């Protein structure tokens, strides 16, 4: 009888311990699937230089791609363990909703209706984009308002399509908008002379100008007509996965603010007296374990991919062919909009 009691008590204790663990860490089907599979499946843009672009060897690079690599480093310890799935404007939401990818990191604008009706969550902002136009220099247009009567090519179903239509209608400008299924088709038609202007985000335009027949004959209008914040997207449910996606992005930005780079990360982890740096890099606090990751999650991400600023310079900034100023995408400390909650 006593043996039964002891066994029963042991079973009860075991159940209690495992329940305590379960309470601490809610199940994350997405994370479990990634660990079982051994790689992260990341939905990216079909091909947008600076953001997500595959070279002729099939190696992906870009700001959105870097984020996926950092996430893979944080989750699996290896930035190389990402399978990139190129998605068109039309495919991106169904591919995420149906579970074919773990997240999207593909230059898509965060909007209210997408958040409210598509079963999607936006986990922060990795690029503040403004929509503008590319026109031929010979058209003599300085701002979007000079495009009265022009014909504009755009990708169908993008936020740019509606933004442009609204913007011109509000100002009583008679502009015809021709909607193509893909960005590439739209810009090819612009290049062929079908349209006077092509519209997209300033980052996308900077990358796509290089693909035109005579890039120097075209000019990108400097004043944006909209604000299009972009960042990683997850589907509803699986809060713990959303937590990871959000805090890896925060971690990359925080690393830049705290002065942690891929070069000094070992030294910082060993010697830094700043406890926020130590918590970020897993030297104290056990923050990784709270999400079901190893404690050097952000150490791996920064060591292998770099902080946000390093990634920006390499992909779209001065170290890249796009040569985009930091602008709004600068840290809040330096007059930009990038801000993260503290690692506390």
């Amino acid at each position, binding site marked *: 009888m006593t043996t039964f009691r002891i066994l029963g008590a042991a079973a009860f204790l075991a159940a209690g311990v495992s329940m305590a663990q379960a309470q601490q860490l809610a199940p994350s089907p997405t994370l479990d699937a990634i660990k079982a599979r051994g790689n992260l499946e990341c939905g990216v843009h079909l091909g947008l230089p600076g953001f997500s672009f595959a070279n002729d060897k099939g190696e992906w690079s870009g700001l959105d791609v870097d984020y996926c690599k950092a996430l893979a480093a944080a989750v699996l310890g290896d930035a190389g363990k990402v399978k990139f799935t190129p998605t068109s404007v039309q495919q991106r939401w169904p591919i995420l909703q149906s579970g074919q990818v773990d997240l999207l990191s593909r230059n898509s604008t965060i909007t209210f209706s997408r958040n409210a009706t598509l079963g999607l969550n936006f986990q922060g902002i990795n690029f503040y984009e403004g929509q503008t136009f590319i026109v031929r220099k010979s058209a003599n247009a300085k701002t979007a308002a000079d495009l009265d*009567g022009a014909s504009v090519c755009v990708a*169908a*179903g993008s936020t740019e399509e509606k933004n442009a239509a609204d913007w011109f209608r509000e100002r009583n400008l008679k502009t015809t908008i021709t909607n193509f299924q893909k960005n590439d088709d739209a810009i090819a038609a612009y290049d062929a002379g079908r349209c006077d202007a092509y519209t997209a985000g300033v980052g996308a335009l900077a990358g796509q100008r290089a693909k035109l027949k005579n890039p120097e004959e075209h000019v990108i209008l400097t004043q944006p007509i909209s604000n299009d914040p972009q960042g990683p997207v997850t589907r509803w449910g699986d809060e713990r996965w959303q937590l990871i996606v959000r805090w890896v992005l925060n971690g990359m930005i925080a690393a830049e603010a705290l002065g942690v780079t891929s070069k000094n990360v070992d030294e910082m982890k060993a010697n830094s007296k700043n406890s926020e740096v130590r918590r970020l890099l897993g030297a104290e606090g056990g923050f990784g374990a709270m999400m079901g990751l190893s404690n050097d999650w952000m150490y791996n991400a920064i060591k292998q991919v770099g902080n946000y600023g390093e990634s920006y310079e390499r992909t779209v900034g001065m170290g890249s062919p796009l040569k985009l100023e930091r602008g709004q995408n600068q840290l809040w400390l330096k007059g930009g909009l990038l801000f993260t909650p503290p690692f506390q």
Partner: protein
Amino acid sequence: MSSFLSFINDKRVRDWFYQIALILLLVGLTVFFVRNASENMVKAGIASGFDFLWRTSGIEVPFVLTGYTQSDDIFALFWVGVANTMLVTVIAIVLATVLGFAIGIARLSSHWLLSTIAGAYIEFVRNIPLLFFVLFWYFGVIAALPQPRQSIGLFGVAFLNNRGLTMPLPDAPGNFRWAALAIFASWLGYWLASAWARRRKDRTGQDAPLLAIGIGLIVVVPALAIAWASLATRWDIPVLRGFNYRGGFVVIPEFVALLAALVTYTAGFIAEIVRGGIESVARGQTEAASALGLRPGRTLSLVVIPQALRVMTPPLTNQYLNVLKNSSFGAAIAYPDVVSLFMGSALNNTGQAIEIIAMTLAVYLVIGLAVSALMNWYNARIALVTR
């Protein structure tokens, strides 16, 4: 027991049983899929239902036949797509039939060069994917046409450039409605006159002066009506301002390119159907007709083609349905058809994939069934009547 056995061995009973079982299976499968999809959508937090149709669309469309503007709702956008799909389909079917008949008959010509060219065309067209035709015509058309400022003017009122053909549009269409009515009435008159002439010829053997009546009613009266309507209306004539011509009606290059691609592509297939139909008519029919003294042209139109049509109609129906489906290739070149506008723009703005895809499928199904119903009616009408 034996009555039960004979009951289940009754062929009619078993036929009914299989019919009912099949229906139950289909209904069950449909219910299963619909419920499964809707449960999954609720779980994933995706809104469902058709309420999105009444949201403001906000999408601008460059080629509209219905009076739609971007402040209308998404249902109105849907109709713009349906109308554009039907427009290009109907015109493409008519033109492809005309071109296909011409090529098919040329293929059978005894003139060696003509039949070789027709044969080469057919082989070329049949072995090239339609998408190449669409892109060829689109980028071909655009590359060949000048920029707006160097437009080709047609009589100073219509202008052709790489943004399309801009034509004057009447300010008030009232006069044109009267003209259309007059044209319809005169064509009806010709039809009655020819029916009367046929009856009279059957009775008395006398020819009526149909040619003169025909020219009068089919050509002169409509020409006069159109001339009157044009002169009595104020025209909105396009003028070059800024980037492009303003005013008038624009036939966009996407429409022209898609239409040209559908017509040239489908004509190749129709030509083969025409050839097969004509060759199926027994040689003795032609020989009998020439023995009666009919010239080759009349032999073809009075003896061969009417018999060939019976063979041609079912495969022609298939080609017409293909034209309808292939019109969705317009999405590749930004022709605003139902696929491009509704399954492209509207789907991306609302994310209601299941509803939108179902509605688009229904559009193709309804138009397709209407086309085949029409062709079946025609087939029944021309069927050989045996007495």
